[in-house]
């Protein structure tokens, strides 16, 4: 049966070639769109890694300028106490500029046990970061006061980095660093990866360093967890407190929920546009193929009539025609898969 069908198709190869090309290109387009959607969906299913509701970020444009580290620390400790004392503030932490959902990037690379890890996010935060963000601690612990003095430089890594370096084994207590680094860092905890690029994009591996006395010189953001009812009036009060204390700095307060919306915008808009465009393309192709195939079948009225006269049932005729089209489609799919497999990036 199939040999017969193949022969029929081969007889009309020129015409069928065009049909197959159309099906091939639409298959590739659909494949590309679906790959993107699956990529987004995969990322969407992963947990956020922290609670972003009711967390605000305060951007400080100019840190306090002084050469004396002690007065710098005193300045910022006073600021911290002032903010913490405000009624609706639950917890706060000074952090490096690459807060979740921001466009700031602070990355480095690592070669560990021969494996090269690129786009490794570097975060710096304080002990209070865990409470501020409601982190998910998977292994070990977050930093605390006792880590101020330690033989090794300590580091907390996230789940993505742990998988890339230690695989399934527990990471706490192990040493992490470049293969040629004499002073490796000791891992004291593993936390859930924070989806810092929004719901739909991969976050990439990251590790977190503990802020030390000199860090205040360059940490220019504060993450603040506020109680759920905090409104614009309270935000105005927080703003005035900050601006009044840091007179030489521009202050901006953003809500993480809004920043998340903006970050997702970047993923959702291209997806919507691509879906609309590919939908139209596929409808176009479907209609075109429909028209062409209908005409072809019409031309074979004589052949069909002959088969019916000899005694073929209606079903047998229609199934033959359907099989011919299916074979064409399958051939296109096979060629398409082959091409995609060879060109996968």
């Amino acid at each position, binding site marked *: 049966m199939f040999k017969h069908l193949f022969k029929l198709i081969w007889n009309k190869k020129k015409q069928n070639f065009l049909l197959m090309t159309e099906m091939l290109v639409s298959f590739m387009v659909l494949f590309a769109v679906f790959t993107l959607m699956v990529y987004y969906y995969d990322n969407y299913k992963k947990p956020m890694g922290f609670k972003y509701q009711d967390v605000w970020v305060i951007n400080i444009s100019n840190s306090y300028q002084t050469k004396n580290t002690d007065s710098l620390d005193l300045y910022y400790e006073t600021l911290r106490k002032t903010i913490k004392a405000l009624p609706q503030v639950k917890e706060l932490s000074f952090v490096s500029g690459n807060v979740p959902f921001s466009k700031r990037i602070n990355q480095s690379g690592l070669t560990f046990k021969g494996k090269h890890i690129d786009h490794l996010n570097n975060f710096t935060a304080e002990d209070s970061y865990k409470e501020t963000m409601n982190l998910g601690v998977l292994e070990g612990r977050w930093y605390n006061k006792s880590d101020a003095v330690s033989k090794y430089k300590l580091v907390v890594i996230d789940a993505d980095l742990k998988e890339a370096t230690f695989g399934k084994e527990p990471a706490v207590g192990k040493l992490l660093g470049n293969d040629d680094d004499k002073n490796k860092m000791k891992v004291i905890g593993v936390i859930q990866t924070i989806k810092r690029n929004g719901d739909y994009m991969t976050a990439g591996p990251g590790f977190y360093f503990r802020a030390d006395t000199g860090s205040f010189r360059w940490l220019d953001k504060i993450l603040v967890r506020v109680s759920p009812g905090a409104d614009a009036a309270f935000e105005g009060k927080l703003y005035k407190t900050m601006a009044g204390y840091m007179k030489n700095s521009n202050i901006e307060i953003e809500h993480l929920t809004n920043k998340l919306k903006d970050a997702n915008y970047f993923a959702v808009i291209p997806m919507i546009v691509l879906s609309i465009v590919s939908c139209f393309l596929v409808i176009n192709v479907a209609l075109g193929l429909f028209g062409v195939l209908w*005409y072809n079948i019409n031309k074979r009225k004589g052949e069909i009539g002959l088969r019916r006269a000899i005694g073929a049932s209606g079903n047998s005729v229609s199934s033959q025609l359907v099989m011919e089209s299916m074979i064409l489609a399958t051939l296109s799919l096979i060629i398409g898969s082959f091409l995609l497999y060879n060109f996968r990036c």
Partner: protein
Amino acid sequence: MLKNYLKIAIAVLRRRKFFTFISLFGISFTLTILMVLTAFIDKVIGDNYPDKKRDRLLYINRIEQKGKDDMTSGPLSYYFLSHYTGMMKTPVKVAISSGFSGTNTYVNNKKIAVNYKYTNADYWDVMDYDFTEGKPFNKQQVDNADHVAIISEDMKKQYFGDAGPVVGKYIEADNVNYRVLGVVKNVPLTSYMFFSDIYLPYTVSKADYKGKGYGGGYMGVLMGASKDDVPKMQAEYENLMKRVPVESKNYQHLYSHANTFVRSYVDTGNEDSSGVFIVITAISIFVFIFMLLPTLNLVNINITRIMERSSEIGVRKAFGASSQTLVYQFIVENLILTLLGGIIGTLLSAIALCGINSVNPIANLQLSINFTVLFIALLVCLVFGFLSGVYPAWRMSKLNVVTALKG
């Protein structure tokens, strides 16, 4: 002759209405999407508010220093721009402004996000903002570091509501009170070099603008006396940059260019990768792939139609029509079909643009159909018609008369 072709074409189209519908559907929708894309690009690049004197202007957005292992790239400091452009002889005026940054203000228990931008006095002479009220600040106010501000219409509505003229009133932003000197027409966010909610003199900036480092948050615009001065200005700036020493031993090369608008808009900040090249390649690939499917579709349908008319073609050939005449006729018929599809596509894109404008995804960005868009649409139609007609026409001319007559 042409009138006959037209009549035949319309008769053929009416014979198989379904095929006609498919072809028109394909052409018109492809055209609609391409036209919306063109309108968008045209608005973003072509809209010359507020830099109306664009053909006499050059834009300096970045400075890049490169070494073997290190690279730094970013906007320039105020000091660098004013010092070096001050040495140049060709520009008539130099506008220096910062990129826009965000802050908040809280009024009536409401939070308003405010984008602010620092400028020098010449900025208002180089740019041509439309002032709905008041006027810009002048050199003396900048030198005195007066707390004055120019605000956008949107900002006025958000902060003051529907009050009358607001010149002379005070607006609080970033915990400082500024006196409003003027109100300007809104700039869409896509003109990111000139967008802001309030414009302030750079002398009131809380950041230190006197620092002698090369990097900072500012960009410059050079204004020449006429269009012909632009190449001279560009060369003068290039030569000047060649003589500037690098800031530290880590770097060996220093790059900074005064570019035309389009180049500076797509600047990637990396000397090695040209922004214009990347953008044009990306757009070309997208357009090519996008037009590939409908073209293939049309080719298929056209071949089918020709096969249908094989008896008619056979008769004409038997009567002595040359292949060339038949091909010519067929291509004309095809062009008529695609032009018809083009008209429908234009109508559809007008509706689509109205829809997009009412949704207003990017504030203050009003898309419209103008001559560039229409011209591109016409071009696309003709290309379509030609591409999808050539192959079937060639196939048709090869038809054997006898086989064609047999049906």
